[in-house]
Structures are given as structure tokens and as C-alpha cells.
């Protein structure tokens, strides 16, 4: 049963996207590349594993049993490529047990049972995955297939630990659109009206010398000169100074982001930093106050003083009000998701399901993040006050908060492209440490730096989608696809920690962007219920119902926040949506496009007719006018 979902999201549009992108990769070339290695195999088995461009089969183990927790054991062939682990049952009737798992999701591999193991299926390997599942395979002791496949798996699943390149650097599929063009920092800043009187674009960090985890292009208060920026960088942890994330189109209230100030136990101050914060406040003429939202619980913020960090004191920063948002750190979140995995996989205990969810605290954390973002939105939108957001380093919780608040405030980010821009900007360019948090190709599975921070943010976005089903141009499918390829290492998008590293490794030229893949088949992700705010011109008749909202303010209450079963419980066949809702969604999207085209054509006809009528003089002159 597993095949259904894993391959649906990772590979089923594979053939479609192939067709969409290029026809040069027909089935002949594929089978021939396989034939050269496995010529002895019959052709229908060959057709079964679909290799990507640049993918090669590296190891095969026969007579392996996949122990599916839901449909039971099934015998078959296990293949390992440089991209995926592929299992195909020998029995044609149990093809639903086919597995196709990108090796990027593998977090650890263990041998189960030794030479002395007795009992059926007790000797084999277990693969622990980052996407909330484990896979068990049983090997026959007598044919010694385990060792070879285990070593191949170790090597290919953790290439970085074996000095090998990630698959993204071998993957060579070409798409009609280049996803690396989606985000241009200057274009995005210009969209928000920068440069303007108050904000300017600076390339002071062009060589990543001021801050190596920040992007090369920043928007800073126009009144702040480069010297000031340099001195502020010295007072902020890792040089992550406050820079612009978003600016309100009418009130000019801003969201800025940074890391914690280096206050330390002695309570150090920096006149420059204080002045710079004042400049951010002055850039917004509407308010005489600035909110500093510290994402951490206040206890953690105080504890950070011992490590040289801390928080802004309200005495030093006049007109600034400090708020702690009480969001816990990456370790707490990792532990919470681990508990959730225990609850969701493999079997679900129905009698304690809800109290189990409560005990993981996952939804409580989601609630805290949503509530924090709502506070930011409230200050910016309703009080026209600028908000500065930071946590400790400003690349985990800060990114969650700013990206979420921007999503609530700006309908542009709720479009398919805008969402990609948002991720590129707030997460990738501002240096969320994807490599460290996900551990791509790295075998140190218990590394304390790993944490599902980004997945948690995607969950928050999903909560927004649930509360505002018409506000997003895309569906949950896009979110799941993003999460899948966050781990898969097929695309270069989520590799490395910072923009600087990506530039150094030439990710843009050597790998394919996830957005190339997604944007070449946009119709798969469109939401038929989407109600774009721009669809409401002044000529639209007033609706008796509400208009589409520009600003989304979700309810951050556990009564409304739900568990994202389509993500966390998707391997369990009993937890899946049973309707072919995806099919229906696509039908509706197509139908809607048809109707819109027809309406536009009709409107055009109407306008033309009006135009003609206006030109021709009235045929009968009214006697009154004579």
C-alpha cells in the first residue's frame, strides 16, 4: 500500500513532467541504460523501476521480504540506486507493496538479527526515515545478500559521510522553466516599493563579509550609512543585523529581522545598535513605537545572557517594547515530532488518540507560532507599528514568524509563485540552516542540530489553508511535495546552509531547482476554490457575502488547530482520504479555467458591441430633440 502515496507524490507526476519537459528521454533510452547492466532481466520488470536522468542502479538484492506493517510481508527484489531504494514484489498480485523511497529521507539504517537469529523474517535491515516511517526488510541468511545491500545503502544514503556528491549534482532532467529565476531579491524589494525615501538597497554584503549567513542584498533604513551597519553587525550575534523583511504597502510599517543582541551578563550596550533601531522606527511615520518580538520564552532569553547573548532592555532602547513569544527551541520541537511519530507510526491506538496528540505538544507548539505571527500581524496591520523579530540566531523561529506573518499580510505570498519567493527569501536567502537541520546525506542521525523547524512552518501554513480555504492559490499537495523534496536531495533548492555556500558550490548551475519541477506542472497544485483579491475590481457587483480577505488572521486555538494527517499519517492506509479528491480538484481547476475564458470572451464581445453602438448614430432621430 505504501507505493500509492510515496510514489504518487514523488514519482507519479514524473512521467507527466517528462512529457511536459522534453521528449528526448523516451522509453528506449531508459531501458537501454538499464539493459547495459541488467540485460538478463525480462523487460516488464525493467519497466517497473523508473529511473530519473542521472540515476543509476547500484545494487540489487533478490529474495528480500518487505515487512509492511499494514499489508504484511511480501517477497521481492530490492534495488538501490544513487537516488532511491526500490522494492518490487515478485508476486504480481501484491504490487501495491511496491516501494520507491528517495534515499534522502533515510535517517539511519540498522541491521536486525544476527547469525543466531531464529524465526521467520527476523534477520534483515531496518531503515528509519525522516518522513515519519520505518521500513523493515528481511533477508535470507543463507544467500548472504544483506551485507552487500547494507553497505551500498549506507554509502548511497549518506554520500557526504562517504565523500560522495549528493544526487542533486548527478540529476540532469531539464524543464521548460528555470526555477532558479523565481526569486530575484531586487525585483522582490522593488515590488514592495524599495528603494524609497525611507529604505534603500545595499550591497554591502556582496562578498558575504559582514555576515556570512545573510544574503548579498539587503534593504536597510535609508538613513543608515555603511559604517553604522558595520558597527551594528558587531553587536548582533553572527553579524545578523536588523534588515527589512516586509513593508506595508500603505502604512509603511515594517517587519524587520535579526539575531539577538550581544548583551551578555554585564548588560553591554551599543549606541550604534540603539540608533539603528531608532532609524527603523523613524522609517515608519505612523507610529512612535517599535515592537521587538523575541520569539523565545523569556527564561531562555535570560539564559542566553550567560552565553554572551540576551535581549534588548527597554531602558536602552527607548520607544521600543519587548514581547516574548514563548516559542520553544529546536530541541523541544524535535522531541515533540519524535513523539508524534511514535503515535502515528506504524499503528494508531484509537482509544488514546486524542490524549496522545495532546501529550506530544506538537499542536501546542503550532499554536504558539501561529499566535506569535498573529501578534506581529496585529501590530503591523491594526496599529501601523513596525515590528522587529528575533530569536537567538534569527534563522529558525525568526524565519517561521516572519514568513508566516508575511503570508498572512500579503496575498502575493499566497499565490503559487509568491509562495516560492517567500521560501527563497525568508528561509533560503536568510540562511536557515537546511543542511544542519535536515542532515542531507549525513549519517549522524542523532546530531543535536537536526530539527523539523521548516516542516513545522509548513504545518502552520497548512493550518492557515484549513482556516482560509479560498485564500491560497495552491493546495496542500504543493506543501507535501515541498516537504518530500526537502529530504529527497533530488533538487538543489534545499541543499546547504546559506546563500554563500550555495554560491560557492554553484548550486544554480550544477543542480535543478525544485521550482523548475513544480512550475512546469502548475496545474497539479492549483486550488479550485482560490479567490484572488485582485479578482475584485471596482466594477464587480457587491457580493452579499464577504469579500476575499487581504489579511488573514487565523484563530490560534487548539479547538481549531488540527493534526495534519495527510502528512504525518499518510503511510497508514486507513488514515488516508478515500475519495479521489485530487482528481476532482484537477477537474474543477480545468473547468474553472474554461469558464473564466468563456466569461472573458463574452465580456470582450460585449465591449465590442458597446463600442459599435456608440459609433453608429441613432437610427431614428427623436422628434423631441429636433
Amino acid at each position: 500500500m505504501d507505493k500509492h502515496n510515496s510514489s504518487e507524490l514523488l514519482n507519479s507526476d514524473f512521467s507527466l513532467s517528462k512529457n511536459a519537459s522534453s521528449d528526448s528521454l523516451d522509453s528506449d533510452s531508459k531501458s537501454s541504460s538499464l539493459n547495459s547492466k541488467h540485460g538478463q532481466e525480462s523487460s516488464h520488470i525493467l519497466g517497473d523501476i523508473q529511473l530519473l536522468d542521472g540515476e543509476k542502479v547500484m545494487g540489487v538484492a533478490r529474495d528480500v521480504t518487505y515487512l509492511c506493517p499494514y499489508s504484511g510481508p511480501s517477497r521481492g527484489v530490492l534495488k538501490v540506486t544513487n537516488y532511491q531504494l526500490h522494492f518490487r514484489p515478485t508476486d504480481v498480485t501484491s504490487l501495491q507493496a511496491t516501494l520507491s523511497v528517495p534515499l534522502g529521507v533515510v535517517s539511519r539504517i540498522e541491521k536486525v538479527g544476527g547469525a543466531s537469529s531464529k524465526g521467520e523474517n527476523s534477520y534483515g535491515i531496518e531503515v528509519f526515515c525522516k518522513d515519519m516511517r520505518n521500513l523493515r526488510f528481511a533477508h535470507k541468511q543463507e544467500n548472504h545478500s544483506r551485507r552487500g545491500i547494507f553497505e551500498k545503502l549506507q554509502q548511497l544514503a549518506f554520500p557526504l559521510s562517504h565523500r560522495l556528491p549528493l544526487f542533486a549534482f548527478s540529476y540532469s532532467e531539464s524543464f521548460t522553466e528555470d526555477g532558479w529565476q523565481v526569486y530575484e531579491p531586487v525585483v522582490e524589494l522593488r515590488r514592495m516599493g524599495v528603494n524609497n525615501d525611507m529604505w534603500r538597497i545595499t550591497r554591502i554584503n556582496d562578498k558575504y563579509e559582514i555576515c556570512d549567513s545573510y544574503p548579498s542584498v539587503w534593504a536597510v533604513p535609508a538613513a543608515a550609512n555603511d559604517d553604522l551597519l558595520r558597527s551594528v553587525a558587531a553587536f548582533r550575534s553572527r553579524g545578523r543585523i536588523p534588515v527589512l523583511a516586509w513593508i506595508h504597502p500603505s502604512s509603511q510599517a515594517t517587519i524587520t529581522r535579526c539575531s539577538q543582541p550581544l548583551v551578555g551578563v554585564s548588560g553591554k550596550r551599543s549606541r550604534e545598535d540603539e540608533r539603528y533601531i531608532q532609524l527603523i522606527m523613524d522609517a515608519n511615520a505612523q507610529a512612535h513605537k517599535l515592537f521587538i518580538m523575541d520569539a523565545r520564552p523569556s527564561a531562555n532569553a535570560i539564559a542566553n545572557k550567560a552565553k554572551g547573548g540576551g535581549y534588548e532592555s527597554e531602558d536602552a532602547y527607548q520607544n521600543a517594547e519587548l514581547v516574548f513569544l514563548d516559542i520553544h527551541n529546536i530541541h523541544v520541537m524535535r522531541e515533540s515530532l519524535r513523539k508524534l511519530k511514535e503515535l502515528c507510526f506504524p499503528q494508531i491506538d484509537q482509544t488514546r488518540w486524542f490524549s496522545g496528540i495532546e501529550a506530544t505538544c506538537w499542536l501546542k507548539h503550532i499554536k504558539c507560532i501561529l499566535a506569535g505571527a498573529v501578534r506581529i500581524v496585529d501590530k503591523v496591520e491594526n496599529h501601523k507599528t513596525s515590528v522587529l523579530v528575533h530569536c537567538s540566531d534569527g534563522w529558525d523561529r525568526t524565519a517561521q514568524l516572519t514568513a508566516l506573518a508575511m503570508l498572512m499580510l500579503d496575498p502575493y505570498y499566497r499565490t503559487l509563485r509568491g509562495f516560492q519567493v517567500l521560501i527563497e527569501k525568508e528561509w533560503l536567502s536568510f540562511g536557515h540552516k537546511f543542511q544542519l537541520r535536515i542532515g542531507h546525506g549525513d549519517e549522524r542521525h542523532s546530531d543535536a542540530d537536526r530539527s523539523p523547524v521548516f516542516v513545522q512552518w509548513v504545518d502552520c501554513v497548512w493550518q492557515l489553508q484549513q482556516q482560509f480555504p479560498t485564500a491560497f492559490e495552491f493546495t496542500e499537495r504543493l506543501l507535501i511535495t515541498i516537504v518530500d523534496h526537502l529530504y529527497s536531495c533530488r533538487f538543489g533548492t534545499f541543499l546547504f546552509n546559506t546563500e554563500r555556500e550555495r554560491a560557492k558550490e554553484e548550486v544554480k548551475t550544477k543542480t535543478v531547482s525544485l521550482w523548475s519541477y513544480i512550475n512546469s506542472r502548475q496545474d497539479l497544485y492549483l486550488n479550485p476554490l482560490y479567490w484572488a483579491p485582485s479578482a475584485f475590481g471596482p466594477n464587480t457587483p457587491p457580493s452579499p457575502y464577504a469579500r476575499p480577505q487581504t489579511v488573514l488572521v487565523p484563530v490560534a486555538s487548539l479547538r481549531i488547530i488540527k493534526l495534519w494527517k495527510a502528512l504525518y499519517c499518510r503511510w497508514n492506509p486507513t488514515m488516508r482520504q478515500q475519495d479521489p479528491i485530487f482528481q476532482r480538484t484537477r477537474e474543477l481547476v480545468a473547468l474553472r479555467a474554461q469558464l473564466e475564458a468563456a466569461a472573458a470572451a463574452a465580456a470582450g464581445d460585449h465591449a465590442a458591441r458597446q463600442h459599435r453602438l456608440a459609433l453608429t448614430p441613432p437610427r431614428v432621430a427623436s422628434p423631441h430633440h429636433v
Partner: protein
Amino acid sequence: MMNEKKLVQNFKSYINVSPVSNGEKNGSVHDLKPKLLNGEMIVGGAHSVVMLTPLSENERGRFGALFVTNYKLSFVPIDTSVNDEYGQRNNLLGVFDVPLTCVGALWLTDGGTTRRRRLMPRTDIPAKLKGIQLVCKNMKVLSFNFVNSPLGTGRQVVMALLHHAFPKRHDLLFAFEYREQYYPTLPSDMNMFLRPADWKRELERCECPHWRITCINGTSDAFMLTAGETLIVPKSVLDYNLMESARHFRSGRVPVWVWGRAEGAALLRSGELLPTELSATAESVLLEQVRRSHPKLTPPYVIYLCGNSYTNSSSTNVLPSLALLNASYKKLADLCTPNTLSQFWMQDSQYYSILESSRWLRYVCNCIVFADDAARHITDNVTVVLQEGDGVDYCAVVSCVTQLLLDPYFRTISGFQSLIQKEWLALGHPFCDRFGLPRPGSSKDEVEKAPPSQVAPVFLLFLDCVWQLQSQFPAASSQEPLHAGGCCAQSSLTVNCNRDLQFILDLVN
């Protein structure tokens, strides 16, 4: 009374404003009138009332007039806002209207949200009334403040409310006063299950030739007093046998046909056996007749919804007694009707464990599991007989859900209405008892003598099951048999069903 706090857009505080400044004696406040239905009349009212914003700690609200009619409690705000139109619109009720039968509890307050004392019929009410709070059966909580209203009018409203919201006799319900013209707008494919011909239509639609219609229950020999006159029984069974066997079933509920397939499998529902000596024999005789009505002569499969009283198999997954169901619903309602903001957040932090401990979702889940089991057997061409208590509560729930799973027709609007007509009205669900309304025909004396009726939200349980199916199958309107993943984890919570319930109630009456 309160500090002037910063107010958010749409809400104006009237608490601190003196009544004089809010319009003179002949001001607009006095011209407010509720929208009345035909046959509806105002029995009490108060001007210059403030309806407090739910869960507002700083006592914001809206200004207007409050009326009690013989049908509803109606608040008419002085200023209408676009935001009032949200959710489902309703032709009988406005946004701020509550039908009187929907009023659950009435509390005397300090004018804000702090409850002072529960008001029961015939309690005395102070003339200087600061405010009241209503907890409705549909989980709405309304608070009104009378501080600005003319002295005594608040009391008048409360008296009218107490008098009319808890009627003593069935014929005092508004449905008997309602004088709306009848428009014959029923869709042609809807089946009301009123006449034998309607049942014949259903038999023909299902292509079930091995069953027959009997009208014995419409004669003086009626044995199933809570059901309509038409019953469908195995072709081979004689009316006389039915009457005989009925003595061994609770409420005379012998197994009757409700739905079937052309292949032969049928769905039947019945009451529990009485502990008489010959009841087991009577049951097996009837089940044998059911078997003969199957073209393949397959023996039927009996599902004991509340456990089998004979084998006493204590399965954990049986449905609870009605009293337990009601208690469960009360817990759920408590969770959904927080009184103050602090209570809201207190419950919120433990929302999931409170929800679980209410067991409501477990019961919803059990119903769906039973229905899924029944549907699987019927798909395998095995006839299913549902058996439970008086055969009018869970039987109806499970039978309906089974049919929704199996028959796409019932997933259309008119099909769904037909289903309710068949299972809940024609086969007699005791709506009045379950809603806690006085039974028809009973006078005041009789009411006091009769055993207390069992209040339980069985119909709501059914609607919740349907909602769960809807959320599991959002696009299923006309597809092949569905298989419900009957598990608690799939369920979530529905809240606003009770309004539909009130409609049904009106229809019944």
C-alpha cells in the same frame, strides 16, 4: 462598571453610555421590531438591551432590542453590519434569533458574564434585573445586559422566556401556531414514506421481490405502536405470525425490512428480545423467514448494537445506554460553551483530552464501525438484522449510515430527506422524548404521572456520523459503495448541527 478599553472596529461599547444619550424616548431604539412568521406574535420585549460580545472580558457588545415571541427569542440590533452574514443563512431565523425550544439553560447574571443563579420555571425574578445568559442547545451562549432598559422590561422578557421556552403541553409548541402557506414543492424523487404506495415504490426501487407490504400495523391488531401503518416483512411470514412474535420483542419491534439489494441481501431493524420463555424460539422462527427471503437462502447476520442480552457478550465497542450518551453529550457541550474567556483558554489547553474523555467521538465512531460492518456483509450478499433496545434509536442511526454507505441515492439531497422520512419518521423515532419536549396528547396530569422520558441526542449523533462521512468522502455523491474507515482518529468535531435538529423538530410537529 468597566474601564474604557481600546475598542476594535465593529464593536461599540454602550455599557457606560446613559440611556438618555442613546436616543430619546421616541428614538429609533423603540422602532425596532423582529421579523415575525405567520402565526407568530410578540409576548415580551425590552428596549435598550446590550447583547454582549461572546467571551469579551471587557464587556463589549451591541445595542438593540430583545423580544420573546411564541416561537423565538430575537435580538434586533440598532445597527446592522455586513459581518452579520456569516455561515449558513436560515429562512426562519435571523442571525440573532434562537428558537425557544433551543433554549437549554437560563442564568441570571451581574450584567456581564458572571453567572449568579440558574433560573427555572416558576422561580421568582427580581424586578431590577441586570442581565441574563442563555446557554442554547446548539451550543450558542448569549448574554444580555438590561442596565439601560426601562425598569421591569428585563423581568418581563425573562418571565415570557421561562413561560414559553419550557412548555408543559405538546400543543403549546409553536408548530401548532405556525400558519405558513403550504407550497407543494417536494421534489418528485423524494419519498415521504407516508402511504403503503410509498413503501412499494422503495421496494421496487431496490428491486426486492421477496418481501411484502403489510398494513396490519394500521389496523386494530397493531402491535408496533410506535411505527407507521406500513411495514415490510418476509414474503413467507403471515400477519398472524407477526402478531404472535411481536409479543416477544420490546415495543413489538419484530425485524422489518428497510433496504435491500437486487442480489438478495437486505437490511432489517428490530428491537431487543424480551426475557420471555419463548422469545428465543420466536426470534429464530422470524430469522428463518428472513433467510427464506434471500434468493440464495443465506442465513442473516444479526448485529447487536447494545450487546447481546442473551449471550451477554461484553464487547467494549457496543453503543452506550441513552443516559450515558446524554451524559457524554453534556460533557461535549460544556467544552463547547465556555462562559468566560479565561475558561475558554483553560479548556483550550486541554481540548483534546477533554474531547476524548467526553467519549462522544468514540460513540460516533462505534456507529460508523457498525454501519461499515453491516455494509460489508450486505456487499457480500448477506442480509443484516440490526437489533437494539426499542429498535428506534441506534437502529435508525446505524441503518441510515449503512444505507448512506451503500446507496448513492441517499447521498443526494432528496434521497437524504427520503432517508430521514423513512428511518426516523415512518419507523418512529421518539423525537419528543429525546428532545425532552412534552409528548403529544398528554395533559399536564399525565405528564406528571408518566415515567420520565429519556432525553438523548440520538438524531444529533446520526448527523455527526453523516458529517464524518462527508469529511472522509468530500466528493462522494454518486459513487460505488464506500468503506468507512471507522476509527476515532479520523473523526473530528461538528458543532452546529442542532439548528437542523430544530427544523426537523418543527417538521415533525
